[in-house]
């Protein structure tokens, strides 16, 4: 056996490779994903959970409260359950009535808090929350599954497992709002609490508690329907149910408008991969765990259903990728050095892009001790990257554009295809949408997401400026390029901050952005319903709060063998 090379760092994958939409649209959840990191933290800090109020009538209408008690703070999910006529049920964010509405309350609500919330929370966007509420959300029952489960339980038997596998949830959230929206408490007010230091933790705590409510309401209705015969759900079947979520374009611009946050997420994941690739040898335990994960992933792929032709084809590709990978693993790791690195390099010429990204998540998986600290480094003070250094010269700025945005300079924005779309916010519900620039009106109210076009226009102006003029001077004459100048300086400091694709081009597929973001949340089983919205399942197979103490908090993402 050759002597191992001295420890060294494998390279980080380049932003030019990672930050292409085609690849970002293939990301999978990993152990750094927020749902998983949250549950690990709740377990580690011995959180306790309790349903402290259940006043739901025989029509399923009323209020329920679930309390999460941490070492320093209590939070309560306040649930309002409604009796919604079927014709009112819509997945769309523009709906105005839901089967259930929720708020995550800071502390334990008193009677007057519940009264106030009852007048605000069911209105969702149309109400104004207070600084005591951290999250606002709502959910609808699954037409395919909810009634089946209630009827089965009422009849005294368990629901059909195949149907549960097919759908995966009893209720779908259609929005989960936080961070100061609609009067909610802003992030800055809670960011110093250890449970909420990292991004989206409050929102995901709320969703996890919502999942508990979805089971309770189904069991409650079954009991009402048939008090004598009704049974509770088998815990093993219950685990197969997550919370569904429909996500449309509203989420897509987030990655463009929060570049420093995007960088920290991608950087954490790429750093984790780099650490694993830098291991000179594969440990026996890690190798065994990895091989099991590959097998469990194969099982998981069989329960990933979608009618979307593009994703269906990719899932078929993934199944082939797993077979090819299993072949490769027969002789892997062998005795060659840096075996994880070799596997990643091998994947780049043998697996689909979706397969490569799945492998990234799978090689990270058995290395918790090596990478889990990175999950705590996925927040950022965005204000630290908003300033513009006025001393940088025109010449240097042009060099930086060539370095980071050559792909944008190579795009001809006089071509209609290159600027076929525009992002806008609809007046009706303040929802981001995508318009066709040459077919619809409204492009004069375009949102600032045409980064490639704007950088190129900035470059053209720089070309006709004095090379050693400062940015301070240049922007005094051309303040219209301020957004592009800020973006460039930020991307120069945080290279994973920019999606290396034209977000207004005719070829852009918006769900690639959604998929990337949702993978960081920890979602899986992506089910695109069009090129611009996607349905997912959250927390499927995760432990429930009432069984949390007795279970391993982080071994749920892949189905058991």
């Amino acid at each position, binding site marked *: 056996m050759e002597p191992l090379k001295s420890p060294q760092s494998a390279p980080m994958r380049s932003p030019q490779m990672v930050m292409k939409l085609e690849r970002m649209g293939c990301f999978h959840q990993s152990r750094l994903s927020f749902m998983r990191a949250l549950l690990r933290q709740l377990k580690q800090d011995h959180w306790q959970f309790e349903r402290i109020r259940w006043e739901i009538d025989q029509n399923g209408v009323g209020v329920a409260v679930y309390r999460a008690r941490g070492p320093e703070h209590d939070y309560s999910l306040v649930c309002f359950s409604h009796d919604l006529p079927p014709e009112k049920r819509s997945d769309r964010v523009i709906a105005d009535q839901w089967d259930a509405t929720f708020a995550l309350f800071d502390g334990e609500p008193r009677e007057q808090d519940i009264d106030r919330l009852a007048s605000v929370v069911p209105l969702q966007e149309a109400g104004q929350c207070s600084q005591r509420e951290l999250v606002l959300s709502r959910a609808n029952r699954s037409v395919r599954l909810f009634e089946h489960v209630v009827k089965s339980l009422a009849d005294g038997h368990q629901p059909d497992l195949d149907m549960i596998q097919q759908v995966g949830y009893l209720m779908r959230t259609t929005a989960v709002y936080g961070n100061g929206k609609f009067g909610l408490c802003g992030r800055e007010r809670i960011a110093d609490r250890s449970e909420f230091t990292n991004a989206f933790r409050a929102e995901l705590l709320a969703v996890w508690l919502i999942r508990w409510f979805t089971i309770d309401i189904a069991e409650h209705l079954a009991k009402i329907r048939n008090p004598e015969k009704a049974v509770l759900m088998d815990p093993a079947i219950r685990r197969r149910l997550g919370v569904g979520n429909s996500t449309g374009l509203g989420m897509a611009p987030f990655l463009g408008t929060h570049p420093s946050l995007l960088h920290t997420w991608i950087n954490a994941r790429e750093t984790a991969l780099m650490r694993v690739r830098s291991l000179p040898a594969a440990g026996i335990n890690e190798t065994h765990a990895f091989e099991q994960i590959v097998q469990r992933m194969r099982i998981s792929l069989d329960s990933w259903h979608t009618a979307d032709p593009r994703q269906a084809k990719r899932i078929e590709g993934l199944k082939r990728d797993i077979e090819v990978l299993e072949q490769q693993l027969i002789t892997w790791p062998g005795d060659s050095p840096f075996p994880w690195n070799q596997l990643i390099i091998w994947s780049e010429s043998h697996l689909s892009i979706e397969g490569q990204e799945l492998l990234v998540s799978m090689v990270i998986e058995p290395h918790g001790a090596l990478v889990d600290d990175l999950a705590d480094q996925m927040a950022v003070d965005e204000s*630290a990257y908003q300033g513009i250094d006025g001393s940088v010269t025109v010449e240097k700025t042009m060099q930086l554009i060539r370095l980071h945005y050559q792909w944008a300079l190579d795009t001809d924005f006089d071509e209609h295809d290159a600027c076929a779309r525009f992002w806008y916010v609809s007046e009706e519900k303040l929802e981001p949408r995508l318009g066709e620039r040459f077919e619809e009106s409204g492009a004069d109210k375009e949102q600032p997401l045409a980064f490639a076009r704007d950088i190129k226009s900035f470059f053209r102006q720089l070309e006709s400026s004095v090379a050693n003029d400062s940015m301070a001077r240049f922007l005094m004459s051309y303040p219209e390029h301020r957004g592009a100048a800020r973006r460039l300086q930020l991307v120069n400091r945080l290279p994973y901050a920019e999606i290396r694709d034209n977000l207004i081009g005719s070829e852009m597929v918006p769900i690639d952005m959604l998929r990337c973001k949702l993978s960081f949340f920890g979602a899986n089983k992506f089910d695109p319903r069009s090129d611009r919205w996607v349905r997912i399942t959250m927390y499927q197979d995760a432990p429930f709060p009432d069984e949390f103490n007795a279970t391993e908090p982080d071994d749920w993402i892949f189905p058991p063998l």
Partner: protein
Amino acid sequence: MHLSLNQVEHTARKAARGAGLLWGLAEDAGRAVRWLEAVDLPGASQLVSLLQKVDHSQLGPLKIIQQNGRWKAQSGKASPLIVGPSIADCANAGSLGAAGNQEIYDDRILAIENIAFPLLIAGFAGAATTQCERWIRLTWDQVKLYCCPDGLGFSGNRKELDAEFTGKLEVQLLQPDEVVMHVFWPLSHDSCSLLKADWEALESYAQLTYVKSSAASRMAGAGAGLNDND
């Protein structure tokens, strides 16, 4: 009305854009308003008054020119939404002469002529101090403001603080140990209270950035049917 700083920043940003500023400048305006509200000064109210009194639909007349060591608007009153970002750029560069004005050096005072709502400048300067490691003194009439990373120091005549106009605003970069303050308003890092009229005015400017939708655009633009149940 009680609002989160995030809500105020985002709406102020959209309001500035709705009033005609380009997004890059509007983003800075939103942050400046947020900073002022975080020290409990009326940033949102000042922005509303400014947008109502100074036309921001044309950038040309608002652009800054440098003359005899002073900054002034191309024509008419200078807008703090244009001047503020340039002061921040210079502060980040460590010199008020960074915009190429040969007569201003680090230890000199930059003068700006005829500027509307000078208090808004403190929002830009305050936000900049977290990055530039220098403090910024603003002086007009009987007002002295010391913008620093933790908040805003003040001395002078409180009545002139929210002046609609001043003939001369002076700006100076300072080392923290050069500063003596009488009153200090700390960054509260929390929420803020706005007059309902100000909030509604901001929202109506913000409204100008939204596109009216039709049933057809709703289908195409969001990519889903109106009702989807499974």
